[in-house]
């Protein structure tokens, strides 16, 4: 269906359902309960981030997952995309369409330049070159390019900005032909409340489109060539294939994905700053991809989701939340557990992330996707074993 195999279509359907129903699925607890206050992740600002970083890492995975070239400067494209979008808001109007188109185009052009230079080297040298470019962009945005980036203050839209194309009655924030991004309806069901926001659904649709495109790329001859580059460049050359243009296209596509993510960030909140391009932001993308499962289709979506969840939810858990959650225990034991858990939550969420990352890299090199496959294998061992045997038999019979 949709040009996908049954298996790919299932993955695609899962992502579509998750994305469209996120406002419900991520709010499993009643609004005013202690659990709900802490663990409900279904609020628009966070869900937007799930979707946007999902797009970013899906794009990053086209480069890193397929070709094995580790870009350590991908946040630069995100930042450039954001700046481009905010400039469109300042010059034209708050309509997000030209803003997002320009952010993709500008990030694409930017990645042509960076890719052309960086791809002259491979391995660690490629990573260092991309890192150098990203840090250079960051430093420039802070200093020389202040007229373009508004330096430390960050770029934002002021009432004095021209907005040449703004219509008289248009919303005073980013909108899609008059439909404001911030507009939302809340559905109340008893103690539960689910918020459906226009901005989130824009991000979700973009994620779905981005994910669909990535499946098509993975399964295309182009995707196969990229995997061939990762596998054996010597054979690639002696097969009469020129690896360079393939690599450069992959780099540009991946940069454009990042530009789209940057444009969407600006469309959700029309301001941006240079810190979006800082090397830790690039590092986060790499961590997300590895955590989810490099080179798998759905891994990037999972990885970015888990990290954004930890960053926003686990970081909210403070001592009093812990005391509340463990109130059913006798005082002494309660205090003991609070003391033990406390370093891992709240501001200590990086510790949790670090440990999780180490566990995954050591025990599940294929990331969360491999974890899922192993779980599925544990529960469905009998059935998968028989089907595998059937398949083998079916394959061998014609050859004999």
């Amino acid at each position, binding site marked *: 269906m949709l040009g996908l195999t049954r298996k790919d279509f299932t993955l695609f359907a899962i992502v579509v359902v998750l994305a469209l129903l996120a406002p419900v699925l991520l709010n499993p607890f009643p609004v005013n309960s202690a659990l709900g206050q802490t663990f409900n992740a279904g609020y628009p600002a966070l869900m937007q981030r799930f979707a946007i970083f999902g797009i970013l890492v899906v794009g990053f995975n086209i480069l890193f997952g397929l070709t094995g070239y580790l870009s350590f400067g991908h946040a630069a494209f995100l930042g450039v995309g954001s700046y481009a979008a905010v400039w469109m808001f300042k010059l034209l109007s708050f309509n997000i369409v030209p803003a997002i188109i320009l952010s993709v185009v500008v990030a694409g052009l930017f990645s042509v330049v960076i890719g052309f230079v960086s791809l002259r080297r491979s391995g660690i040298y490629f990573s260092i070159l991309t890192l150098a470019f990203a840090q250079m962009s960051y430093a420039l945005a802070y200093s020389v390019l202040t007229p373009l980036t508004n330096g430390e203050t960050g770029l934002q839209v002021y009432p004095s900005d021209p907005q040449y194309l703004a219509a008289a009655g248009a919303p005073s924030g980013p909108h899609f032909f008059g439909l404001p991004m911030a507009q939302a309806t809340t559905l109340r069901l008893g103690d539960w409340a689910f918020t459906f926001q226009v901005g989130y659904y824009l991000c979700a649709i973009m994620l779905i489109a981005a994910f669909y495109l990535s499946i*098509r790329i993975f399964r295309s*001859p182009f995707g*196969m060539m990229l995997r*061939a580059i990762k*596998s*054996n460049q010597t054979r690639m050359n*002696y*097969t*009469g294939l020129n690896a360079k*243009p393939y690599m450069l296209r992959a780099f540009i596509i991946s940069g454009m994905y990042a530009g789209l993510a940057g444009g969407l960030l600006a469309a959700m909140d029309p301001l941006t700053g240079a810190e979006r391009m800082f090397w830790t932001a690039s590092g986060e993308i790499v961590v997300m991809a590895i955590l989810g499962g490099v080179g798998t289709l759905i891994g990037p979506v999972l990885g970015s989701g888990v990290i954004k969840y930890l960053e926003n939810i686990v970081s909210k858990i403070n001592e009093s939340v812990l005391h509340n959650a463990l109130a059913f225990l006798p005082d002494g034991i309660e205090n003991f557990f609070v003391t033990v858990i406390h370093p891992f939550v709240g501001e200590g969420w990086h510790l949790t992330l670090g440990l999780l990352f180490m566990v995954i890299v050591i025990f599940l090199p294929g990331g969360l996707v491999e974890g899922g496959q192993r779980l599925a294998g544990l529960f469905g061992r009998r059935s998968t074993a028989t089907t595998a045997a059937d398949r083998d038999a079916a394959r061998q019979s014609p050859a004999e």
Partner: protein
Amino acid sequence: MGILEIKGINKRFGGLQALGDVNLSIQENTVHAIIGPNGAGKSTLLNVLVGKLIPDSGSVLFDGQSVLGRKPFEIAQMGISRVFQTPEIFADLTVLENVQIPCFAKRDGSFRMHALEPVRHEREIGRQAEAMLDEVNMLGKADVIASSLSRGDKRRLEMAMCLVQEPRLMLLDEPTAGMARADTENTIQLLKDIRKRRGITMAIIEHDMQVVFSLADRITVMAQGTPLVEGSPDDIKVHPKVREAYLGETQI
């Protein structure tokens, strides 16, 4: 005039004269073996032919066109393909994909952007790849990841990948090095079959005399970077200079 004309090739690495005035002509539709002791310059010569090394002087003409200064992928597109000492395959891909890639390279040239249509919709490529796998008796392993193949099967797969490109000249660098006797026999048989069915010109660098004498029509013996003698296998077997320089060490 041979399909490959090598004239006056010189190559120095610092103080070492790796190739000194090499002249060699490989005739179409022959199997031409290049033998010689270690350090005779065989591998250096091969690297010059595929564009990996640029010689200090001399010329290499393939079918009348100069090969020198071209990149390996351009030389491959001209119709020269190479089989390595250790099989170079796409180890992470399936056997079928390994053969599909050269099918695309043959049809679309060194680069073509087709990023949306799935590979499985390319029916002609699929048929071609399967026919090739059938020819080397590997169709039953089409869905196997190539890294899990045996050494002999990897060699077979690499040959299939080269054959798909319909090369006019195949360069083989010690195709049986490090192989067990049975695998060596299989490889010899495979090369004979390819020869018989497709009549591809082959240049083989080889240490194993059994392989050389069971395949070659012409033999060039190299020593210290220059061709010493060239002749038919029967000539070479009895040539006094050869026995002295090389074969004297081994029993034939």
